[in-house]
C-alpha cells in the first residue's frame, strides 16, 4: 500500500504591535503595464523599503507619514514623492532610456536584471505574436541567442524541438518549462496571447535551482495577471491563409515511365511501359494532397481589479486547418488568473487554464504522394478511385484522404493555486500547488472499402479503435524567502522543498464489423462483440527535492549567487536515488564603479561568470527496473486456444542514474550611448557526462528493446551574441537587432568499451546512417564518399570496388587505401548540427504605423535525404534521377537508375546542405490615434498584416530544411516531413 507523502505544516504566530502606517499602491509604466520589482525606500531611512510584485503593487510600513518615498527602477527616472499623510500612493514611472523590462523572472522568484549573475534572456510577449501559430514553442524561433527551434512538423498544433546551447545529451534534450510555477514537459496547451513574459534560462547559475531537470535549459513563462485598474476589455483576432512553400521536384508521368523502364532493364527485366512519352504530364499527387488552408484566432480578455482582488480572464478560439488535406487542429482556451488579498501581507491566487482541443489526424499521405506513380490518374473515368497499387504497394492518396476518420480530442486543466505570506518585514513564505490534468481521447474508424476489385488498398471489415489517456501531475512547492537590505548590502535567501508526482494511464479497445459507417456509429458498442480487444496500462513516477539559494549584492557592484538543489527520483535505483546540483556565480557592475563614471559613451558594463552542475533525468519511468511484458501469447491445443505468455523480454539497467551537465559561462553586458546600443556576449562550455541512452545493442543479444545506460560524455561550447540598437529620429522610432550563436558539439567519451553508437535507420533495410564517435558531433553522418561514376569496364578494373558494381554505378572513395572498398571505407560525411544559428530583425514606428521584418537561419548542418533512399519498389522519382548515367560519359554524378543495391548504400549521394535563411516575418500595423478612438469609446484599435515564412533561401531539395527528430542520434534524416507553411494573416486588436 502506497503511503502518501505527509507534510506537516507548523504555523506559529507572533503578534507584534508597532505604531506604524501602511502605505500601498501600484507602479505602472507609461503604457499602463505594471512594473515589477520597483525599489521603494523611505527617504530618511533606506533600510525601510519594498519591491513591487508581479502586479506592480507594493505595501510598505512607515513609522512617519511626513517622510517621502523614493521610487527607483533601472531604466526609469527615479522619483521622490512625499507621503503627505496618504495611505495609497500610485505612480506612473517614465522611461529613462530605451531599456525596457529590467526585472527578470528567475527560478522561484524575480530579480533585477542588473543584479543577475546568470545568463537569462527575456522575450517580449508582443514579439512572440509576430508569427501566426498556435504553438508557443514554434514562436520562439529566432528570438533568443543560443536557442535553436526546429518545428516538429508543419502539422497543425504541433510543437517544436528546442535546443538551448546545443545538444547536451544523447537522450531527450528538450528544456524544462515552468508556467506560473508549474513544472511541465510541454507547453502545447498554452495560448500565445496569454503570455506576459517569457524567460530563457541558459547557464547553470540560472538553471541549477531546477536540479536534475535543468540541464537542457529552462523556459519560464508568466501568464498575464490582473491589474489594479478599471476593467479593460480587449479583443484580438486574426485570420490567415497557409500554403505549402514549395513542392518537391518529382518526375512527371512520361519521365517516370522512362525511368521505370530503365530500372527494369538495369535489374534484368522487361521494360514496364511500352511508350513512356505517351503518358505526358500525368498526375501531380502533391497537388492532390496540398491545399490553401485557413488559420484563425479570436481572443477576448478582461483585466482589472482593486486593492483586494485583481483578475485577468480570457477566452481564445484557435483554428488551424492543415495544408495537407484531412489534417486540422482546433483549440479553445479559457484562463482565469486571479489574486485575492486575504489580510494584510497574505495573498492567495490562482492561475488556471482550461483547454479543449480537437485534432484531425491526417491519413499520412505525404509519403504516398511522394511515392505514387504519376501514370495513375486520381479517378477512373467512371469517377471511382484509380488503383495505384497495380505495380507498387502504394495506395491512391485521394482514396486514403477520403476514407480517413481519425480524431483526437483533449481536455486539459493546468494551473496553480498559491498563497504568499509576508511576515516580519523580510520574510515571504510561499506555498504553491500546481496541477496538470490532461485527458485525451482518440478515435480512428476505417470503413469497408475497396479502391478496385483487385487493389491492395482495401479494407474488408470496418473497424474502430478508441483510446483514452490521462496524464496527471501535481506539484507542491513550499519556499521561504528572506530579503534584507542594509547600507551597501542586498541579500536574498531562498530555501524550499518541493515534491511532484506524475501518472499516466491509458485505456482503449477496438471492434470490427460496425452497424453503420457514419459518425453516430463510431462507438465500440456498434461493433461486433466477438471482435473486441482492449488494453489498459499505466505508469507513475515521483520526485522529492530540496532547494537553497543566496543572492548577495554589494554596493550595486559586486554580485554573488550560489544555489544548491537535491533531487530524489523514483526513476532511479535505490543506490542512485538522490543527486546534488550546486552552482556559483559572480558578477561585477563596472558602470557603478567610481572610476567608470566619466566614461560617457558607456552606459552599462557588467561582467559575470558562473559555474554549476545540473542534471537530466528524462528516461522512462521504470528504466532502472526490468519489467515483465505480458500478452506474448502462444497457440496450443486441438481446439487452438491462446495460452498466455509473459517474460522479461526487455533488458533494463538497474544502475542507471541521472546525467550530469557541468556548465561554465562567462558573459559581458554592455550599453552604449545611453543604452541605445545594447550588446550581450556569452561564452559557455557545457560538458554532459554519464549520458543516459538506449544504446543500440547487437540483435544477437536478443532483447526486444535497447537498455538505457549511462554511457557518454558530450561537450557543447559556443558564443551567444545579442545586439540591439534603438533610437528615434524625430517622430520615427526604430530598432535593429541581431542574435547569433555558435555551437561546437563534440563527443568526448562514450563509456567503457564503447567506441561508437550507430543510429538512424535508413532506406529499405534500415541502414545505420549516423555514427556517434569521440571527436565528432553527436549523430554525425557516416557513409561512403562518392568519387563519380564508373563509366566503363576499364574503370571497374582501375579503381577499387566493393564487388557488385557495374558501369553506371557510384564509385566510392577508398578511404583506408587498401585497394578495395569495404565497410571500413565508410567515414564522416557531415554533421546534422548547425554550427551557426542567427536571426536579425528591424522595425520602426511612426504616426501610428509599425513595421517589423525578421529573418532567421542556420548553417553548417547537413541533411540526409532519406526519403530518396527508401525505394521498396519503383516509386516515383525525384527529378535529380533524370541526370542519371545511361552510357559512358552521360553522367559522373548521378548513377544509373535502380531501386536498391550498391547505389543505395549510405553515401554522400544522399547528403544535402541544410543551411538556410528565411524571411520569417514581415509585419505592418496601423494604430488609430487615441483621440479619434475615444469618440467611439475605444482605448485601442490596431489593424495589421503579417506574412510568415514567405521566402526561404536554401539548397535543400525537400519541403523544408528543418528536419526534426526526437532522437538526437538520428537528426536531420528527412524521411518525409510535414512541411512548414507560408502564411498570410490580417489581424485586429481592439481595447475598450
Amino acid at each position: 500500500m502506497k503511503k502518501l507523502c505527509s507534510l506537516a505544516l507548523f504555523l506559529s504566530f507572533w503578534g507584534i504591535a508597532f505604531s506604524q502606517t501602511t502605505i500601498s499602491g501600484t507602479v505602472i509604466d507609461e503604457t499602463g503595464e505594471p512594473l515589477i520589482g520597483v525599489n521603494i525606500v523611505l527617504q530618511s531611512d533606506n533600510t525601510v523599503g519594498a519591491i513591487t510584485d508581479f502586479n506592480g503593487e507594493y505595501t510598505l510600513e512607515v513609522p512617519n507619514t511626513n517622510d517621502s518615498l523614493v521610487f527607483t527602477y533601472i531604466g526609469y527616472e527615479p522619483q521622490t514623492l512625499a507621503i503627505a499623510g496618504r495611505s495609497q500612493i500610485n505612480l506612473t514611472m517614465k522611461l529613462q532610456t530605451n531599456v525596457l523590462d529590467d526585472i527578470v523572472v528567475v527560478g522561484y522568484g524575480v530579480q533585477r536584471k542588473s543584479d543577475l549573475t546568470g545568463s537569462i534572456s527575456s522575450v517580449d510577449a508582443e514579439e512572440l505574436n509576430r508569427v501566426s501559430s498556435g504553438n508557443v514553442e514554434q514562436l520562439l524561433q529566432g528570438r533568443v541567442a543560443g536557442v535553436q527551434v526546429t518545428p516538429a512538423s508543419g502539422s497543425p498544433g504541433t510543437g517544436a524541438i528546442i535546443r538551448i546551447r546545443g545538444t547536451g545529451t544523447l537522450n531527450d534534450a528538450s528544456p524544462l518549462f515552468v508556467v506560473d510555477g508549474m513544472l511541465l514537459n510541454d507547453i502545447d496547451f498554452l495560448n500565445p496571447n496569454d503570455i506576459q513574459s517569457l524567460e530563457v534560462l541558459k547557464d547553470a547559475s540560472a538553471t541549477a535551482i531546477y536540479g536534475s531537470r535543468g540541464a537542457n535549459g529552462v523556459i519560464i513563462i508568466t501568464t498575464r495577471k490582473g491589474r489594479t485598474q478599471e476593467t479593460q476589455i480587449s479583443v484580438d483576432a486574426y485570420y490567415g491563409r497557409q500554403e505549402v512553400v514549395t513542392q518537391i521536384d518529382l518526375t512527371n508521368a512520361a519521365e517516370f515511365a522512362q525511368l521505370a523502364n530503365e530500372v527494369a532493364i538495369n535489374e534484368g527485366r522487361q521494360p514496364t511501359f511500352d511508350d513512356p512519352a505517351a503518358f505526358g504530364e500525368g498526375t501531380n499527387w502533391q497537388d492532390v494532397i496540398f491545399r490553401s488552408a485557413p488559420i484563425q484566432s479570436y481572443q477576448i480578455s478582461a483585466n482589472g481589479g482593486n486593492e483586494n482582488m485583481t483578475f485577468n480572464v480570457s477566452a481564445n478560439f484557435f483554428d488551424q486547418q492543415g495544408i495537407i488535406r484531412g489534417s486540422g487542429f482546433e483549440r479553445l482556451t479559457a484562463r482565469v488568473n486571479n489574486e485575492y488579498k486575504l489580510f494584510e501581507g497574505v495573498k492567495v491566487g490562482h492561475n488556471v487554464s482550461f483547454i479543449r482541443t480537437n485534432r484531425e489526424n491526417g491519413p499520412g499521405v505525404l509519403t504516398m504522394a511522394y511515392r505514387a506513380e504519376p501514370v495513375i490518374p486520381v479517378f477512373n473515368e467512371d469517377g471511382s478511385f484509380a488503383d495505384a497499387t497495380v505495380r507498387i504497394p502504394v495506395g491512391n492518396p485521394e482514396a486514403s484522404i477520403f476514407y480517413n476518420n481519425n480524431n483526437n480530442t483533449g481536455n486539459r486543466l493546468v494551473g496553480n493555486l498559491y498563497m504568499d505570506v509576508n511576515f516580519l518585514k523580510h520574510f515571504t513564505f510561499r506555498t504553491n500547488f500546481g496541477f496538470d490534468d490532461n485527458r485525451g481521447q482518440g478515435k480512428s474508424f476505417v470503413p469497408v472499402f475497396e479502391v478496385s476489385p483487385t487493389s491492395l488498398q482495401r479494407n474488408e471489415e470496418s473497424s474502430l479503435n478508441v483510446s483514452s489517456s490521462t496524464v496527471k501531475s501535481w506539484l507542491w512547492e513550499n519556499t521561504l524567502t528572506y530579503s534584507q537590505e542594509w547600507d551597501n548590502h542586498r541579500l536574498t535567501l531562498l530555501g524550499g522543498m518541493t515534491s511532484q508526482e506524475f501518472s499516466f494511464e491509458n485505456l482503449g479497445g477496438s471492434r470490427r464489423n460496425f452497424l453503420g459507417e457514419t459518425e453516430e456509429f463510431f462507438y465500440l458498442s456498434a461493433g461486433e462483440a466477438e471482435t473486441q480487444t482492449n488494453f489498459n496500462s499505466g505508469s507513475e513516477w515521483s520526485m522529492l527535492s530540496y532547494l537553497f539559494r543566496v543572492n548577495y549584492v554589494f554596493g550595486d557592484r559586486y554580485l554573488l549567487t550560489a544555489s544548491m538543489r537535491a533531487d530524489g527520483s523514483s526513476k532511479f535505483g535505490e543506490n542512485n536515488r538522490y543527486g546534488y546540483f550546486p552552482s556559483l556565480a559572480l558578477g561585477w557592475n563596472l558602470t557603478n564603479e567610481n572610476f567608470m563614471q566619466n566614461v560617457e559613451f558607456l552606459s552599462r558594463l557588467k561582467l559575470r561568470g558562473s559555474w554549476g552542475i545540473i542534471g537530466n533525468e528524462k528516461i522512462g519511468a521504470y528504466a532502472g527496473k526490468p519489467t515483465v511484458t505480458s500478452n506474448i501469447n502462444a497457440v496450443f491445443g486441438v481446439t487452438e486456444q491462446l495460452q498466455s505468455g509473459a517474460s522479461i523480454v526487455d533488458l533494463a539497467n538497474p544502475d542507471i542514474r541521472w546525467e550530469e551537465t557541468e556548465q561554465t559561462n562567462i558573459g559581458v553586458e554592455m550599453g552604449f550611448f545611453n543604452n541605445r546600443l545594447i550588446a550581450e556576449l556569452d561564452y559557455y562550455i557545457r560538458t554532459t557526462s554519464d549520458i543516459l541512452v538506449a544504446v543500440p545493442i547487437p540483435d544477437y543479444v536478443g532483447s526486444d528493446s535497447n537498455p538505457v545506460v549511462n554511457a557518454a560524455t558530450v561537450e557543447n561550447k559556443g558564443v551567444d551574441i545579442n545586439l540591439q540598437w534603438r533610437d528615434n529620429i524625430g517622430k520615427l522610432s526604430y530598432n535593429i537587432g541581431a542574435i547569433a550563436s555558435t555551437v561546437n558539439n563534440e563527443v568526448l567519451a562514450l563509456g567503457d568499451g564503447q567506441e561508437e553508437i550507430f543510429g538512424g535507420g535508413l532506406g529499405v533495410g534500415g541502414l545505420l546512417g549516423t555514427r556517434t564517435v569521440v571527436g565528432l558531433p553527436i549523430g554525425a553522418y557516416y557513409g561512403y564518399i562518392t568519387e563519380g561514376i564508373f563509366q566503363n569496364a576499364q574503370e571497374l578494373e582501375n579503381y577499387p570496388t566493393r564487388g557488385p558494381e557495374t558501369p553506371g554505378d557510384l564509385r566510392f572513395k577508398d578511404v583506408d587505401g587498401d585497394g578495395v572498398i569495404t565497410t571500413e571505407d565508410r567515414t564522416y560525411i557531415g554533421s546534422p548540427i548547425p554550427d551557426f544559428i542567427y536571426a536579425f530583425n528591424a522595425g520602426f514606428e511612426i504616426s501610428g504605423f509599425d513595421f517589423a521584418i525578421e529573418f532567421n537561419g542556420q548553417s553548417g548542418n547537413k541533411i540526409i535525404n532519406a526519403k530518396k533512399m527508401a525505394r521498396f519498389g519503383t516509386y516515383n522519382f525525384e527529378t535529380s534521377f533524370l541526370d542519371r548515367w545511361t552510357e559512358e560519359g552521360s553522367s559522373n554524378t548521378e548513377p544509373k537508375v535502380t531501386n536498391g543495391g550498391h547505389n543505395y548504400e549510405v553515401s554522400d549521394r544522399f547528403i544535402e546542405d541544410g543551411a538556410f535563411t528565411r524571411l520569417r516575418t514581415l509585419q505592418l500595423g496601423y494604430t488609430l490615434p487615441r483621440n479619434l478612438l475615444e469618440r467611439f469609446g475605444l482605448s485601442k484599435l490596431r489593424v495589421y498584416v503579417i506574412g510568415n515564412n514567405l521566402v526561404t533561401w536554401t539548397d535543400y531539395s525537400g519541403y523544408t530544411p528543418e528536419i526534426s527528430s526526437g532522437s538526437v542520434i538520428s537528426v536531420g534524416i528527412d524521411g518525409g516531413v510535414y512541411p512548414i507553411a507560408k502564411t498570410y494573416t490580417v489581424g485586429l486588436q481592439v481595447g475598450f
Partner: protein
Amino acid sequence: MKSLLYKNRLALIMMLLLTACSEDFLEKKPLGQLSSDTFFTTEEHAILSTNTVYSMLRNWEVHVFSYIGITDIVSDDADKGSTPNDANFLTEIDNFTFDPGNTAFGGVWSGFYRGIYRANLNINRIPEIDMNQALKERLIGENKFLRAYFYFKLVRWFGDVPLITVPLNPDEYKQARTPAAQVYALIEQDLLDAAASLPTSYPPDDVGRITQGAAQGLLSKVYLTQGNFAGAEQYAMAVINSGNYALFPNYSELFQPQGENSSESLFEVQAAAFEIGGGGTQYNEVQGVRGVPNLGWGFNRPSDDLVKAYESGDPRRDATIFYPGEVLPDGSDIIRDNPNIENERFNQKAWVPDHPGGNGNGPGNIRILRYADVLLIAAEALNENGKAQEALTYLNMVRARARGNNQNLLPDVTTTNQAALRQRIWQERRVELAMEQQRWFDLQRQGRVGEVMRNVGKNFVDGKHELFPIPQTEIDLSGGLMIQNPNY
C-alpha cells in the same frame, strides 16, 4: 486567531515546514505488470515465459517475409513473385545481387536471436523455481529444443554465429563469431537433452508443444546436415520405430486445415486466427494469391524449374502450385488472373480458406518437420550407410502415399546403386517438400548448391554465396569483433 489576524498592525507568522516524507514516495512499482523482482518464482511463471518462445515462432522476423526469401525464393524452387517492382530486397535475394545491407538477413538474424534470448532466459532461470520436477524438466526441454531449432537455422544460413547461451550482461554485448562446429555441438546437446526429457505426446490442450519425436527428428536432420549418417540413421529410425507417426493419407489435404497436427506432424508452428485479431502469422498472407479472393501479396512464386521437376502425373505438383483459373481447395472461388504478375503461380501449401481478424492474421500452421521428411532422412542415411534395401522401403513409402489410389503413377524406386539411389532420394525430397522452405538447406548440405543455382541461371559465386552475409549493422555493433563472411 482570526481576531489576531484582523488586527491591522501585525507582523506575524513564522512558518516552519517539517517534512515527514516516507521513502515510499519515491518507490514506484510498475503498474499493470508482473514485477521482475518476483518473476521466475512459480510454476505459472515458468509456463508463461516458455510460451513467449513459442510466440516468437509466429513472428514476422522468424517465419514470414525475409524467411521465405532466404529459404525458397533464393533457391531454385521459387522466384520472388508478386509484381516485378515490389520488394526489391527480395529481388536481390532471388538474383544473388544482395549485399550485407539487405534487410532480409538483418530481419531473420534479429528474430531468431530474440527467440534464443527468451529460451536462454528460461533455461537459466526455470531451474531455480520450486515446482513440479517433471514439468520443470519438460519446460526446460521445450526451451532447449527451440534454442537448438533457432541455432540450426542460423548456422546453416550464416555459418559461424555468436553462440550465446545465457542472457548477456552489458559488458558482454560485444561478441565474436563462434565456429560452426561449436554451434552444432550445442544444438546436438540441446536436442539430446530435449529428447530425454520431453513426452511423446501431450493432452489435448497442449498439443503443439515440442515432443520427444520432434527432438529426435530434428536431431536426425542435424546429423544428416553434418554428414553424420550414422547419427542421422539412429535418430530417424528412433522416430520411425516409436510407432507414434504415420503418413497422412492425402498429400493435398495435409496442407489444409484438416492436415494440421496430423499423424504426420513432428513440429508445426501453431497458429490460429481469432476474430479479435491475433494468434496468426503473416506466412499465409505474404504467399497468398495476390489480390482477390485471397488478398495475399503473392510472393514466393513456384519456379518454372520446379514445375518441370515433377514426374509425369505426380499429384503433388497440383497440390503444391496454384494457377489462375484453378478452383480453390474449399471450392469457394477460383483464382482470378492478375495481369500485372508475370508467369502467375502461387504456393498452394500456404493457402488458407479464411483469415479472421485481419488479412495478416493467417491461421495456417507452418509445417516445419513432418514424418515424410524423417522417412527421407532415414532413406538418405541408410543409403549412405550401405543399407540401400532398407532405404528403398522408406523412400517408396513416401512415393506410395503421393500416388494415392492411382497405381499408374510414381512407380516404386528399385535401384540399389548407391549413387543412383542418392539422386532419387534427393529428387524425392525436392518434390515431396517443395515450397516448404527445405530446398536451399538440402542443396547446401549436398554440396551442389552452386551448380544447381547456375543451372537455373542464377548468379551464384562459389566460395561466397554458400553462406549469407552477416548483417552489416551487427558487425558494426559488435565493435568489429565479428568478421564478415568471405567475399562480401
